[in-house]
């Protein structure tokens, strides 16, 4: 994810995987498994579960590589999205999605990026982290909960014991602010 070259190569390798090229698949694994395992661990902190989600994700990559369209987005985003979805599937399949109540006022401090991790982040990632930090803490927390725990508007409303309309308008306002900050 460091350069335009890397992105192009990854996209090319996905095309090769769609034709059944195992070497290209191995190379994709080599290049992306550290990041994608991090994605799994963020959603499923138990290592064994994260490892199984990672397996599911790469099997999906193998099966669905042909649905990747380089004209419609970056390969790394496609891989991260797919991996996040597999991990969320597993989280939901456990039947007991984290039941911690959603806190509207403040977010957990350990969600905030620390300086060390940002050094390794790409420019996109740094920008997003910066813009997220400009949001009201509670709103940023809602977006994070939704994304990392697979919670929809109604899920968030139930966990926050707040009306659906309130949750929706808070998140929508935050998303527009995010868009403004990022563009």
């Amino acid at each position, binding site marked *: 994810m460091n350069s335009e070259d890397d992105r192009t190569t990854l996209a090319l390798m996905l095309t090769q995987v769609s034709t*059944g090229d*195992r070497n290209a698949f*191995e190379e994709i*694994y*080599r*290049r*992306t*498994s*550290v*990041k994608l*395992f*991090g*994605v799994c*661990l*963020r959603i499923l902190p138990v290592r*064994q579960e994260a*490892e*199984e989600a*990672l*397996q599911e994700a*790469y*099997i999906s990559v193998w099966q669905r590589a042909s649905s990747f369209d380089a004209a*419609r*987005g*970056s390969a*790394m*985003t496609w891989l*991260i*999205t797919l991996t*996040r979805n597999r991990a*969320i599937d597993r989280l939901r399949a456990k039947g007991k999605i984290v039941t911690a109540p959603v806190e509207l006022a403040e977010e957990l401090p350990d969600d905030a*990026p*620390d300086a060390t*991790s*940002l050094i*390794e*982040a*790409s420019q*996109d*990632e740094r*920008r*997003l*982290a910066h813009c*997220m930090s400009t949001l009201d803490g509670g709103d940023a927390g809602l977006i*994070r909960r*939704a*994304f*990392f725990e*697979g*919670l*929809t*508007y*109604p899920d968030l409303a139930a966990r926050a014991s707040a009306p659906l309309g309130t949750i929706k308008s808070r*998140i*929508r306002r935050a*998303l*527009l602010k*995010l*868009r403004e900050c990022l*563009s």
Partner: protein
Amino acid sequence: MSDTMLPEDDELLAAELAFGLIDGEEKRVAEERLATDRNFAAAHSRWQDYAAAMFHDAGEAPRPSVWSAIEARLPANDLGRAMVLRSTLRWWQGGAAAACAAALVLGMVAVQKPERVFVRVPVAQAPIAPMVAVLTGKQGLVTVSFDPASGRMTSAASGLALGDHVPELWVIPADGKPRSMGVMNAAAPGWGKVPTQAAAALSAGVTLAVSVEPVGGSPTGLPTGPVILTGKMAATS
């Protein structure tokens, strides 16, 4: 990617789809629209990039047994058992032997059935042992330790005097292709995350080497100067 702003509601819908905030019918309709509305698809793609960037602090090397398990779940092909064995061993020689053995047994089962077979392989519960290497050779001494759990390494050199050049550390797995682990500071110990490609190649028994490179590291991505030190990774337990 076009940066034209959509009407606010459409922009929000694209964001809601990317962040997984909507479900059911609403989600289905939005997904259908991706195929027909280019501006909407472009906005969604942009929001997906933002959403993916939420994982800015994510990154950790999975254990080698995870790859063995994935490889064993790929559909059987006509390469034959020997190829399956060789390709698995080429990658992770010596690492997580028990997990490999389990994966290989299942891999053979998969090969015997020619139709599309997906075999589920539970990931083995082997502990993640840190690895260490001592590199010796023409000049000085370099020690390296790598923690697969965090993907980080520490390295230290002593007795290296390279003038206006720098030592660069490489991992050379069984395929013979060196992957850079980064440029070292000859005067002070260093620590940091191992680049993805190099981390994936690190396992017990793999060769590490230090080459002499211009300041900033090899311009080509492969060693350009002489290799002065080598050593092998060893698991600590």
